[in-house]
């Protein structure tokens, strides 16, 4: 059972993550993207970007770094082996581009209990240098109760 008292808890900013061009290409191939904006620097620059653009779900890589902090927090008491991903959303203020250095700040938006199960919603704000908000990632995990 997830500790309901962590609702509203904010976790400190993660260490900066430097988004690499090859990392974007690797992720793009993994999600079956063939979009030149993800892969080809010249195509991305012709479309007005500084470098290749990350696929719309790439922010999960940054979100995971914040989530790892929560899953290791004894106060939250989340048993990762019982976790199922319920839903996920990414709201982009602008696309993530190679060269961005990103940090994330996670807040536990809500903890709900449904019988033996818990539903925890996390809101992770992802910032580039100068505290520029790039993306808000919202994720709900379902934690199945013990037998």
């Amino acid at each position, binding site marked *: 059972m997830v500790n309901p008292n962590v609702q509203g808890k904010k976790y400190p900013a993660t260490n900066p993550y430097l988004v690499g061009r090859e990392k974007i290409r690797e992720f793009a191939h*993994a999600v*079956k993207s*063939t979009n030149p*904006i993800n892969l080809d620097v010249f195509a991305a620059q012709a479309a007005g970007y500084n470098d290749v653009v990350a696929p*719309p*779900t790439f922010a999960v890589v940054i979100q995971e770094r914040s989530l790892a902090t929560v899953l290791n927090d004894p106060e939250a008491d989340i048993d990762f082996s019982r976790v199922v991903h319920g839903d996920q959303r990414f709201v982009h203020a602008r696309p993530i581009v190679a060269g961005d250095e990103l940090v994330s700040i996670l807040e536990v938006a809500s903890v709900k209990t449904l019988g033996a199960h818990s539903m925890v919603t996390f809101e992770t704000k992802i910032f580039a240098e100068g505290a520029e908000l790039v993306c808000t990632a919202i994720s709900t995990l379902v934690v199945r109760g013990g037998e």
Partner: protein
Amino acid sequence: MTHINIASLEVGQVIGTTEFLLTRDSLVRYAGASGDFNPIHYRDDFAQSVGLDGVLAHGMLTMGASVQVAVDWVGDAGKVVDYGVRFTKPVFVDAQDGAVLVVTGKIGEIDAEKGEVRIDLTATFNETAVLGKAQARVRL
């Protein structure tokens, strides 16, 4: 790059359908690229030990592949400003044959003032929907 005239679009219009073959190779590749190394996505024995019928695809892989239908239509991955899904059913990936994910995108809403279109995606595996409320807002 293709330019889409927002005035020519209609709600309900199909923008595209793509079949994605997800193999065990796809899952290992996604694990490496994303950093999600949960063994339920590559080890049959582990998946079975936690009560699953077999190895299943990362929900985030299904989500990430599905949105490509909207990306291909608009031609620019940076134009997807908002994308959300619910994970409703697992996609089991057979060791030999993999799994075929069929994704169709339709226009769900047109906001001419903002120049944005909502694309509603359906993703099916074995003719069962695996994502719920999969919606991508695209800036034209």
